[in-house]
């Protein structure tokens, strides 16, 4: 039985891996894909992580991973299907294997939330997208829309404005929520047309996106719609094992959950600010708590 399994290889999991190596724990990182970074992989510009004035998420994710690999972390590529309490620790069951550890740091993060409007599921991959940096270039010179008002929505709108003829930014509130410097850039960008206090009602189109209808009844023609309405915590594997609030695992910065031996780090934890910097901090804290716990049992 290992000392520790780290579930997830975003910034929180990789930071935990570096600290676990330094603590000389017997541990492994389980990740669904042999490529690390989590949500930042889709981010084309990151300017708020100390030491990197301007980088993209892919580069930062790879930089983090190289660091964790050099520190000696073992990576297992498998998808976790269940986590169960056993005598003296936990069994982590995966699609292709199973692993046992005294403790688990749960750092599976979050994934983009679906909007749940008519046409969304049917036209996903046919003009409906959750990744502007991936799919933006398929809409060169054409009209698109972004739904949402947070950082990601604003970044997406600015990115698309470089490529598309016009970008409608649709947000249900009467003001945007994202960082002030992003709002400023959005307001100054002539290609971005703000639609506030209105909501998407239906995505129109037979075989591909052709237009949108809003709750107010307004319709307009677009070829693509990018959905950026926040994220959903990936906490389902711990249902019934730990205390949760709105899908997030309840813990303070120590990462200590309501279940002995299960610790949490990153976006899946209840916290105020979800950023790369706070995820990295969580990873360090969680390992510190793991060490304390291992010394007690």
């Amino acid at each position: 039985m290992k000392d520790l399994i780290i579930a997830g290889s975003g910034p929180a999991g990789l930071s935990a891996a570096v600290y676990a190596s330094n603590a000389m724990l017997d541990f492994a990182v389980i990740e669904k894909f042999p490529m690390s970074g989590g949500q930042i992989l889709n981010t084309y510009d990151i300017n708020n992580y100390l030491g990197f004035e301007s980088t993209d998420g892919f580069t930062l994710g790879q930089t983090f991973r190289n660091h964790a690999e050099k520190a000696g972390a073992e990576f297992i590529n498998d998808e976790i299907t269940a986590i169960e309490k056993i005598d003296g620790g936990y069994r982590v069951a995966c699609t292709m294997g199973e692993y046992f550890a005294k403790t688990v740091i749960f750092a599976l993060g979050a994934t983009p939330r679906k909007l749940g409007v008519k046409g969304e599921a049917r036209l996903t991959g046919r003009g409906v997208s959750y990744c502007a940096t991936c799919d933006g270039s398929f809409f060169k010179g054409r009209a698109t829309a972004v739904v949402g008002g947070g950082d990601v929505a604003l970044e997406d709108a600015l990115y698309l404005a470089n490529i598309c003829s016009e970008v409608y930014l649709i947000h249900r509130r009467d003001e945007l929520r994202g960082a002030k410097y992003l709002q400023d850039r959005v307001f100054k960008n002539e290609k971005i047309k703000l639609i506030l206090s209105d909501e998407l009602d239906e995505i129109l189109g037979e075989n591909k996106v052709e237009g949108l209808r809003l709750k107010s009844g307004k319709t307009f023609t677009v070829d693509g719609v990018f959905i950026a309405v926040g994220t959903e915590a990936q906490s389902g594997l711990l249902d019934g094992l730990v205390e949760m609030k709105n899908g997030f695992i309840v813990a303070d910065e120590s990462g200590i959950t309501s279940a002995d031996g299960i610790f949490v780090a990153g976006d899946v934890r209840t916290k105020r600010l979800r950023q790369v910097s706070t995820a990295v901090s969580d990873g360090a804290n969680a390992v510190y708590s793991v060490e304390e716990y291992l010394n007690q049992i």
Partner: protein
Amino acid sequence: MVKEIKTQDFKTEVIGGSKPALVDFWASWCGPCRMLSPVVDKVSEQYDGVDFYKVNVDEEPDLAMEYGIMSIPCLIMFKDGKIFDQSVGVVPEAALKAFVEKAL
């Protein structure tokens, strides 16, 4: 092995190939594509009955257009010269194997 395929060879090799062919439409600037590529590489070593190809949508925009690619990564399985199945987004190894095995 996953072979990089160009527009001019697509008809003879993929459409006219004797085996089912899986084509991974990707681009270098697409993070999720770069997550999926090593999974496709690994799975390609495990099946002799399927040919594996990848199309860089930047270099081969005509192919991306012809197959209506609007979201990547996108996997298309061709069988008997026709589209057999399609999958958009990143998929883990086990799901990719299931996708491949359906065409066998």
